[in-house]
C-alpha cells in the first residue's frame, strides 16, 4: 500500500482495514497524530487529506485517496504555520495531547472560513475534546490566526 505523508512517499504492508492513525503511528513512526478515543469523538487524531481535516482513526488505509499532512508537516519549529504561531502566542497547550488535533482542525477550518464569527469557531472546534480545558485560549488563538490571515 502506498501513501504520501508530509511530502514523502511510503510503502506499507498492512491490511486495508487498518486505520490511517495506526499506519502513521506504529508503521511509520509519525506520532504527532494522537490516539484518544478511536471512535471520532475526540479529534486528537486529526490530519489533513488534501488539506481537509479528517479523523485518521476512522479512515481505513484502503480508502485513503489523497495526500496526507500531519501536524509535523503543517509547520516546524523553524517555519511555523500561522495557527501554530497563534497557539504559541496565546500559550494554549497544557498537557498538549489534544493540541495536534486542535491545530489541524483550526488550520483547515480557517482555510475555508477566514472571517469566522464566535459561533462559527464554537461549531468548528467543538468536535475536538480538550480534557485540560484550554478552550478559552483556543478561541483566542483561532481569532488571532484569522486576523493574521486577513492581514489585520
Amino acid at each position, binding site marked *: 500500500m502506498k501513501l504520501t505523508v508530509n511530502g514523502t512517499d511510503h510503502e506499507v504492508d498492512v491490511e486495508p482495514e487498518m486505520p490511517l492513525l495506526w499506519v502513521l503511528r506504529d508503521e511509520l513512526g509519525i506520532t504527532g497524530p494522537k490516539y484518544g*478515543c478511536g471512535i471520532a469523538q475526540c479529534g486528537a487524531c486529526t490530519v489533513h487529506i488534501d488539506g481537509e481535516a479528517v479523523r485518521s482513526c476512522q479512515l481505513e488505509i484502503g480508502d485513503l485517496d489523497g495526500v496526507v499532512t500531519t501536524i*509535523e508537516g503543517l509547520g516546524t519549529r523553524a517555519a511555523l504555520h500561522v495557527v*501554530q504561531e497563534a497557539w504559541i502566542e496565546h500559550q494554549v497547550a497544557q498537557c498538549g*495531547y489534544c493540541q495536534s488535533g486542535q491545530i489541524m482542525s483550526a488550520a483547515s477550518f480557517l482555510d475555508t472560513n477566514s472571517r469566522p464569527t464566535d459561533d462559527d469557531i464554537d461549531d468548528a472546534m467543538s468536535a475536538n475534546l480538550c480534557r485540560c480545558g484550554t*478552550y478559552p485560549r483556543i478561541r483566542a488563538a483561532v481569532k488571532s490566526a484569522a486576523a493574521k490571515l486577513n492581514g489585520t
Partner: protein
Amino acid sequence: MSQAGKIARRTFLIGSATIVGGVAFGTYLAKRAIPNPLLQDLADGEAAITPYVKIEANGITLITPRADKGQGSYSIQASLIAEELDIDPVTATISPGMPGPAYFNSAVLQEGVPFPAYDQGAVAETMRSFMAVPAKIFQMQVTGGSSTVPDSYIKLRMAGAVARETLKEAAAQRAGVSRTELKTDAGRVILPDGTQISYVDLAADAATIDPITDVTLRDPSEWRLLGKVNAKRLDMVAKCTGTEIYGIDYAVEGMVYASVRANPGIGGDLLSFNASAAEAMRGVQKIVPIKHGVGVIADNTWRAFQAVNAIECEWSAGPYPASSIEMFDILEKAVDNEDMYDHRQRDEGDVSGALERGEVIEATYRIPYLAHAPLEPMNAIARVTNTACEIWTGTQIPLFIRNKAAQLTGLDEEQVFVYVQPMGGSFGHKLEMTHVEQAVELAMAVKGTPVKMTWSREEDMTHDYPRPAAVSRGRGKVADGKVDTFDLSVSQSALTPNWFGRLTGTTIPGPDATITTGSWDQPFDIPNYRVTGYRAPDMVPVSSWRSVGASGNGFFHDCFLDELIHAAGVDPLAERIRLCLDDASRKVLETVGDMSRWDGSTPGENRGRGVAFCMSFGVPVAQVIEVTKTDAGIKIDKVFCVVDSGPVLDPTNFEAQVFGGVIFGLGHAMNAELTYENHAPQQDNFHAYEGMRLYQTPVIEVKALSNASKIRGIGEPGVPPAAPALANAIFAATGQRIRELPLNKHINFV
C-alpha cells in the same frame, strides 16, 4: 528568606528540611543520609552539585523531579532553579531524573494534618513540618495535592543558589581572586577583568570543593524569570508542532506492541478464555494471561486491540455491588449511621441541641463516580531481562512503580529503572500503576524484548479507579436572618487507604480525612457548626481525582450553605462574607463581588447568579457564575473566579490552570458520571462521558490575590467551587434546587 537558614554541608536535603520549617525534619535527616541518585552515573570530572543541577561536558541538566502531567511543572521547576543559577532555562536539558528517595515530596502530606489550612498557628505549623518525616519514610516521590510549587519554591531556588556560589568559588580559586568579586550571567562566571568562564568549564573544579551553602535567596524584586507575565512554557513549541514525545509516543529499539483486557469488574478474575480466533489474527505474536485478565503481544497497537477484543473471556463477578442503585443504597444507609462513624473534625456550639427545637431545614445530596479520562490513555513500555527491568511511562509515582516492578520480577530495586515521560493529562489517573504492572507481566513473557502496552480508551475508562461516589445530608437552622446551625454528614468509601493499600499492600490506620476534606475545614464561623464523616464499606476501588475530597465536599458544603442563606432571606454573598473568619478568604469573596458587580442573585428576568466558595489545599477560591434560562435549557454566560495562592510565579500558566480547573469542575458537574451495571461502568468512551466541549464553555475571568502568607499550587483549587456556583446560579434563575450531580439529569444545558 532568613528562615531558610543554612544548608548543612554535603546534604542539601538537611537544609531543605529546615526550609520547610521543621526541626524534627532536620534532625531526622542528620541521622540517616539519603542516597543521592545522581552520584551513581556520573563520570570522573563531572560534578553533582546538588540533586537538582547536573553539569557535564555537554551542558547543564536541571532535574525537575515533580512529574509534568500538563500543569506546567517542568517549566516552573526549571525556572525556580534557573532564577538563582543564572542560566536561561532554554539552554539547559530538563530531565525528570531517575526516581530516588532523595526526591521525596514533603508538601504532599502536609495537608493531612488535623488543622484547617488557614490555621497557621505554631502547633499546626509544627505538625505540618513533622509530616515531612512520614513523607520520607514512605519515600513519596509523588506528584499530587497541588504540592509541586509549595514543595519546590525554596528548595529548588536554594539548589540553584548553592550551585551558582559553588561554581563562583571554583572560578575564584582558579583565578586567585575572591568569590565576592565575581558575577554570574547566562551560565558563566565573570571575573573582575571581564573574562568569562562557562559553568561547564568549571564543573570538574567545582566537584573537588565543598559546596558553598551559606547562600541568601534573591528578593522577588530581583527576579528575571519568575512572576513575569510574558513567561513562555518551555514545552509550548514542542506541543504545538507535534514533537513533544509522550509516553505513548516513546519508542525503544526492537519493541513490540500490546494491549490487555482485564475483568470489567475490577479485581474480579478471569475464569477461562478462548484465544483461538485471536491467535490466528495477523501480527499476533503471543497471548499472555495476566492478573485479572489477558494480554496480546503483536506487531502493531491496532492489531493488538483487535486481537484482544477477539478473545472470548469468562469473568467472575467483580468484588463489589453490581449496580449504581445498590451502591447508592449503601451510601445512603451509611450517612448518620453510628456503626459507620469515621471522624468529626469540626464540632462547634451545640448542634444537637439546636436541631431539637424549631424548624430544621434538611437536604440530601449525591455525587457520582467519575473517571479521570486524561486524553492520553494509560500506557507503558517495559523491558525485562535477568538483570534489569526498564520502564518508560508517564507517572506521578515512579518510586512505587520501581518497588512494585522489583516485586514482580524478583529483581532488586536498584535493578529497576523508571524513565518518567511527559503525560497527556492525568487528573489523578497516573497516581495508579495497574497498567505498568500489566506491561511488566507481558514483558516477562518475552524476556529481553521491550513491550509497549497501550490501553484502548474503552479499557481505560472501564478500568479507571474513579472519584468515589458520595452522599451527604445537611441539617440546619436559620434565625434572625442569619445562618445559625449547620450540620453536614458525608458518607463515602475510604479513598486514601484504598489507594495506598493498592500501591503498597499495607493499610493506613485511622480515619480517612478525604471523606470530609473541603467541608470540615472551611473558614466560616457559624454558632452551631458540625461536620461528620461516615465511612461506607469499600465498593468500586477508588482514587484521587483532581481536587480529591474537595471535589464533592465543595459542592455539598457550599450548596447547603446557600440553601440556608436563601432560607434566612439574606444576600448569598454578604452572608458568606459575614460568616468568614479568615482575612485572605474574606478578601477573595469581596473581590469576586466587585469583579462581578454583584447586586444580588437575580440580575434580571430568567437570569441567575450563584456564588460559591471553597478553600482546598490551603487556597481560598470564590466563584460567581451567571446563567440565563432559555427555552432550550440553561446557558452559562460568565464565570468570575478569584484565587489567593500567595505569590504567582508564572501568571500565564496560573491563569491557564484556573481556566482548566473551572472547566473541569463545570464540565463534570453538568455532563459526566460513571454508572455501574453488572459491576462495570456503562460509559466506556467519550460519546457517553463528555465533560465540557468548547461550545458550552463560558467566558471566564480570573483574578489572583496574594494576601495569603504561603505559596501554594493552583492545579486543583479552581475545581471545587465550580459545581456549587453553577447549581446556586440555576437555583437563582429557576427556583429549582438540584442536589445531585451531574446536573443534566435534572435540567438541560444549551
